[in-house]
């Protein structure tokens, strides 16, 4: 809700005064400053510091202090007044959150809370809690505001009181603030305030609702208290609060608090004075404890933001189950079981609901053991809804990462604690090291359960009282004090066990006198717990939020690395049987690559988002003002060690993943020209490439097929397990039959053991795609060149094949032979052939297909037998005369994925004519779409094995091309330079030959001619085939073929290929980006409207905008005349 308001406010600011931008920048939302601001005042993350100004706060004298000469005229505090979208905060802590403020002033960790909580004196007023703001008549150059709040006027909405006057017992809360700044600055602040106040008016209802759950409202009631049931102040109301109230002096504390709240405002309207902090240090009274925790932790403001979130969540997920719920259920009976409230269904029910609701709203955390104990403790003092929001303040801000799935926060703070012990108690530390006691096995539960499970409850709650106001450093201070106090005994403890029992007996005696033998009765009265508090906060006062922050930063990497290496070991071990096909090194690399890609993509996404925001700002801000607006605290998001980021790889990430290992997976357009062409034009900086510093991955139908195959559960995302299994099948078996089968299955869409004509063409395209940067692996040049020369010379009508050609060039020939053979040995798709189809209809091949079933099984065990047969098959095959031109023609199809191949020299008309059309068609009866056909796996194998180069492709080139461990070294142009990777010159550039592994420099003119033939003729045939197929297709009402084909045809028709596919994929990104950067205003508006539409009703929103607009107009009109005028603005909600 407030975030919507903030949008409105910002938008309004732009509308009102374009020059506002300049001023706005002064305190604009620098993310890191904003988060400092939020943590200083414990505000929700929707709040950003908009304005700040030096000011003096005057609190009028109270009843109790009247007559005290020092405070006859009230109290005065000098400090800073801050304004955010929905809050006005004052603090005597000299922090500044303006853009220009130095980090040290933004994080001026002084005062009790050291910047991690509401420190010093002051207030944090939601703007909706302000009822009236008047500008006071005062002396020259003085700019003073009198602020009246709703304090005491909100309770009991059913019996509306007419203003403050009628209720004589409620003293109107009215404070005065003198602004100290230039007149202009003061005016500006007031304008901001005015807008915020207007926007806040609508929230008075919410405020009323939230406040009604605060016990203070009941406590300070002046009328008919007896007839009204008090708000829920926790299970303690029904089951008694822990401890002896007499011993705790609960009544006295309650009286003190009642007085304090009467004088200084309650809940939202509470003003902090030094007494406030003192009252907290002595321990909160039972019935107010929950409310004060809410106020100090800031969870009260979360509740104000969305008062019904808790009940809504429960309603929304009613009846649903989850892993977290199962885990919660197991622990319900062991959460503070000694407290009577948790021996009852009432208490257990509350605990169950709060934990469950939280596990739904924060699925990343879900449920972590120890949360049950913490929440159980909270529920003794507060309502379910209050506990729910306090839990969220804990998990998000107070102890971040403690309960995450990796518990990195817990481990990190243990490291921090250890280094503090080492620093402050070197002798003890040395002893720990010497006796091999690991401190964290003792201290981890202290932190994880906030001492609730370590000390007797009454004392644990005293620690919590301070913890909620002063932040996590309290946990460290108390821990250090425990060790310091028990230092002597601990030095004598030789091992874990002894260490633990020393501390255990210490905790059990916290209520005893710390100086039982002292003569001084006062000293004798000091309990061990009081001693602990004194030591913690006096002796270890040097442990501040900033020193903790520093140590956290220092240790973060090593902690995360430990977690990550543990997670990696675990993940790899759990990868299942397929993973055994790969070496541990390969698995390790796959793991790293997998998560690196995900991590980097996440980072990049975030940076792109930020860049967009920055660009959006640029249009209204000076460049100098938007420098250095990074958010260091968020940089790490997505690291494995931080818990669940994503562990799923989508298709684009998959492409990027492959492009890091295999050169064929890199786009042809990516090197130099590509990016400039696609991104440069949009003026997107280099860092904004969706692929980061890496090369742009290729896009090809083959990749899509592999992705789909690996995505076994069809979720459009791959897990690490999917990836490992997928790669293990290709690379792990080191078995050519397996790889061939794998490839075949990739194209057997309906799993019927047949690949149709279209599939054959696509397989050839894939083979070309995979080989277009040259083949890798061990190819025995001697053997293959013999086999190949035979093949190619036969296919070459000119007969001018040079003796030396590279493997890559030969591979081209092999592919065309492949197509030819596929069609040659394909089986017609005819019903009457159904039963006999595997035996084929080709004349000479009866014996080739003798035992198709053996082939079909295709498992390792059968291989030996099969291979023998296949060798015979091969012999037979070699004898069969190749249909020469056919082969050449088919090749062209293969080339279609490469756009360049079409607009390059392929337009050589002369060479195109070299093979006559008639000849081609004659040999291409198989291509007639009127006669559908298919190949089976045995046929496919036979065809592959008939060609030595193809055989070696499947045996070694393809598996080797996945460089799992070493990756692609120097990602320089030599790897993905455009000329290398395409057939744009209808031949191979010198670079490509250098690239070729078997690399004899060959080619030359003659070869080029051959390739020209192959390509140009093939292209023509391909077009023809496509055309005819389309005709046939049309007749078959289009659904005869997979729908995917239609798309691809469009690509082909448009004379574009793979490169276009890539461009298409990327262009959506670009569009999004450019739109956002150029049309910022529109988008901001849409954003604002969409946002507010979700929360408040449309008309209301419009109304608000209007109001603000009017206000703007009025402000202009007034600004000149109101110098020292009376009421600036008056709200009576």
């Amino acid at each position: 809700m407030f975030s919507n308001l903030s949008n409105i406010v910002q938008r309004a600011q732009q509308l009102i005064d374009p020059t506002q931008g300049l001023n706005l920048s002064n305190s604009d939302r620098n993310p890191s400053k904003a988060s400092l601001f939020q943590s200083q005042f414990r505000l929700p993350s929707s709040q950003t510091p908009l304005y700040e100004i030096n000011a003096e706060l005057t609190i009028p004298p109270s009843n109790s202090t009247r007559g005290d000469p020092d405070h006859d005229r009230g109290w005065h505090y000098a400090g800073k007044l801050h304004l955010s979208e929905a809050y006005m905060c004052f603090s005597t802590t000299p922090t500044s959150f303006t853009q220009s403020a130095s980090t040290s002033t933004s994080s001026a960790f002084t005062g009790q809370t050291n910047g991690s909580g509401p420190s010093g004196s002051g207030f944090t007023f939601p703007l909706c809690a302000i009822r009236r703001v008047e500008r006071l008549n005062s002396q020259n150059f003085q700019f003073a505001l009198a602020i009246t709040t709703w304090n005491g006027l909100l309770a009991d909405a059913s019996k509306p009181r007419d203003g403050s006057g009628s209720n004589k017992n409620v003293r109107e809360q009215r404070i005065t603030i003198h602004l100290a700044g230039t007149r202009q600055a003061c005016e500006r602040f007031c304008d901001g305030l005015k807008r915020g106040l207007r926007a806040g008016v609508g929230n008075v209802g919410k405020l009323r609702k939230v406040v009604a759950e605060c016990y203070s409202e009941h406590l300070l009631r002046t009328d008919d208290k007896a007839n009204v049931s008090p708000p829920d102040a926790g299970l303690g109301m029904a089951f008694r609060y822990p401890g002896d109230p007499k011993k705790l002096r609960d009544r006295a504390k309650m009286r003190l608090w009642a007085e304090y709240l009467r004088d200084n405002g309650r809940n939202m309207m509470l003003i902090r004075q030094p007494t406030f902090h003192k009252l907290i240090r002595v321990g909160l009274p039972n019935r107010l404890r929950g409310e004060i925790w809410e106020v100090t932790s800031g969870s009260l403001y979360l509740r104000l933001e969305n008062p019904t979130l808790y009940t809504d969540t429960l309603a929304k997920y009613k009846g649903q189950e989850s892993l977290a719920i199962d885990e919660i259920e197991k622990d319900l009976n062991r959460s503070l079981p000694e407290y009577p409230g948790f021996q009852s269904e009432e208490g257990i029910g509350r605990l169950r609901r709060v934990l469950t609701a939280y596990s739904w709203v924060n699925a990343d955390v879900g449920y972590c053991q120890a949360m049950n104990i913490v929440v159980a403790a909270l529920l003794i003092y507060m309502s379910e809804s209050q506990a729910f929001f306090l839990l969220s303040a804990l998990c998000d801000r107070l102890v971040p990462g403690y309960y995450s799935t990796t518990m990195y926060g817990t481990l990190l703070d243990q490291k921090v604690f250890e280094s503090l012990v080492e620093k402050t108690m070197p002798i003890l530390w040395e002893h720990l090291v010497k006796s091999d006691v690991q401190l964290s096995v003792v201290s981890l539960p202290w932190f994880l359960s906030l001492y609730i499970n370590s000390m007797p409850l009454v004392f644990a709650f005293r620690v919590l009282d301070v913890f909620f106001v002063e932040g996590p450093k309290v946990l460290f201070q108390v821990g250090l004090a425990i060790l310091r106090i028990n230092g002597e005994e601990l030095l004598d403890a030789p091992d874990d066990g002894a260490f633990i029992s020393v501390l255990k007996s210490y905790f059990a005696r916290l209520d005893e006198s710390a100086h039982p033998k002292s003569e001084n009765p006062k000293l004798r009265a000091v309990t061990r717990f009081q001693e602990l508090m004194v030591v913690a906060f006096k002796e270890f006062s040097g442990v501040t939020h900033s020193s903790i922050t520093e140590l956290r930063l220092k240790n973060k990497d090593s902690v995360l690395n430990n977690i990550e290496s543990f997670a990696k070991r675990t993940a790899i071990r759990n990868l299942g049987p397929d993973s055994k096909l790969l070496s541990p090194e390969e698995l390790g690399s796959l793991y790293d690559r997998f998560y690196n890609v995900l991590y980097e993509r996440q980072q990049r996404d975030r940076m792109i988002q930020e860049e967009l925001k920055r660009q959006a700002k640029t249009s209204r801000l000076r460049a100098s003002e938007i420098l250095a607006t990074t958010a260091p605290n968020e940089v790490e998001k997505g690291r494995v060690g931080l818990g669940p980021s994503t562990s799923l790889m989508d298709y684009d990430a998959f492409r990027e993943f492959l492009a890091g290992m295999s050169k064929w997976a890199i786009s042809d357009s990516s090197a130099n020209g590509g990016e400039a062409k696609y991104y440069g034009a949009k003026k997107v900086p280099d860092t904004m490439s969706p692929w980061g510093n890496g090369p742009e991955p290729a896009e090809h139908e083959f990749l899509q097929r592999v992705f789909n195959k690996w995505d076994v559960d069809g979720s459009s995302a791959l897990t690490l397990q999917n990836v490992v299994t997928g790669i293990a099948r290709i690379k792990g078996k080191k078995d050519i039959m397996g790889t061939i089968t794998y490839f075949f299955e990739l194209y057997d869409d309906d799993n019927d053991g047949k690949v149709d004509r279209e599939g054959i063409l696509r397989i050839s395209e894939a083979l070309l795609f995979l080989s277009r940067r040259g083949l890798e692996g061990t190819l025995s040049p001697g053997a293959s060149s013999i086999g190949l020369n035979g093949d190619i010379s036969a296919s070459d009508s000119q007969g001018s094949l040079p003796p030396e050609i590279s493997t890559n060039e030969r591979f081209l020939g092999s592919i065309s032979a492949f197509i030819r053979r596929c069609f040659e040995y394909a089986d017609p798709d005819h019903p009457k052939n159904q039963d006999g189809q595997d035996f084929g209809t080709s004349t000479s091949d009866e014996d080739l297909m003798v035992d198709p079933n053996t082939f079909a099984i295709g498992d390792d065990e059968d291989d030996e037998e099969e291979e023998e047969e296949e060798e015979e098959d091969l012999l037979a095959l070699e004898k069969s005369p190749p249909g020469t031109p056919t082969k050449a023609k088919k090749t062209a199809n293969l080339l279609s994925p490469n756009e360049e191949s079409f607009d390059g020299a392929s337009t050589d008309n002369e060479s195109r004519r070299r093979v006559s059309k008639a000849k081609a068609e004659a040999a291409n009866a198989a291509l007639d779409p009127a006669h559908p056909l298919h190949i089976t796996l045995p046929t496919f194998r036979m065809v592959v094995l008939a060609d030595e180069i193809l055989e070696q492709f499947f045996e070694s080139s393809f598996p080797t091309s996945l460089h799992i461990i070493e990756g692609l070294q120097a990602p320089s142009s030599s790897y993905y330079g455009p000329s290398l990777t395409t057939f744009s010159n209808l031949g191979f550039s010198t670079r490509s030959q250098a690239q070729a592994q078997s690399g004899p420099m060959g080619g030359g003119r003659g070869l080029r001619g051959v390739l020209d033939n192959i390509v140009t003729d093939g292209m023509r045939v391909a077009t023809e085939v496509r055309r005819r197929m389309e005709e046939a297709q049309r007749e078959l009402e289009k659904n005869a073929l997979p729908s995917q084909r239609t798309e691809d045809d469009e690509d082909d028709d448009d004379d574009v290929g793979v490169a276009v596919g890539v461009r298409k994929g990327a262009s959506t990104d670009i569009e999004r980006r450019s739109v956002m950067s150029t049309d910022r205003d529109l988008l901001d508006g849409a954003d604002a409207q969409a946002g507010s539409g979700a929360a408040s009703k449309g008309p209301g929103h419009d109304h608000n905008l209007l109001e603000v607009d009017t206000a703007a107009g009025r402000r202009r009109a007034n600004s000149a005349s109101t110098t020292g005028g009376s009421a600036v603005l008056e709200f009576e909600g």
Partner: protein
Amino acid sequence: MAEAPKPSSSVKLVLLGEAAVGKSSLVLRFVNNDFQENKEPTIGAAFLTQKCNLPTRTIKFEIWDTAGQERFASLAPMYYRNAQAALVVYDITKPTSLVKARHWVAELQRQASPGIVIALVGNKLDLAGESQSTSDEGEGEDGGDARKVSTEEAQAYAEEESLLFFETSAKTGHNVTEVFTAIANAIPETSLKSARGSGAAGTANRAGEEQRVNLSGPRDAGAKDGCAC
């Protein structure tokens, strides 16, 4: 506990295994000879000690019973660090728990102290058909054989990895002390720190140490006697 002359040494032992396989129950059976729903909230790991009298010496086990939830697994290195023995527990009615156990064995072999003695323990034997008679309480487990992991399979794996192997029931107490005795016997004399924990100053604090020690809380469990082995 004053068997004066026998040398005494302490052994750090860690229990690992999937949640709910019965780690805590095994420890409770060993330490207190008791079987009950665990009321003790375990944060990180519970620490307990128990003595084991061998003919020639006394072994004092310092037992770390690690927490059940999966996410606490990343804390495990903290507890198995320097452990001389480990009980890797699975549930014979749950095959996935053996997979997890294998993981822990591999983890320990790679990350823990080199000489660590590992025992693979298949718990909840009382749920297996053949030992049906022993489950006197008849907890309404379908009555049939709930065993899903065969003794042979686990045994073969244990032999392959040179692990001690036992099938136990924390519920009936079957084989529980045997596991610990076997571990005590398997710890090489040389790896025993002489009388770790019998230091002069330590003894004073150690009264009542053979109890369940909740490492974080003031609440005591009942005292018990030394182990029967």
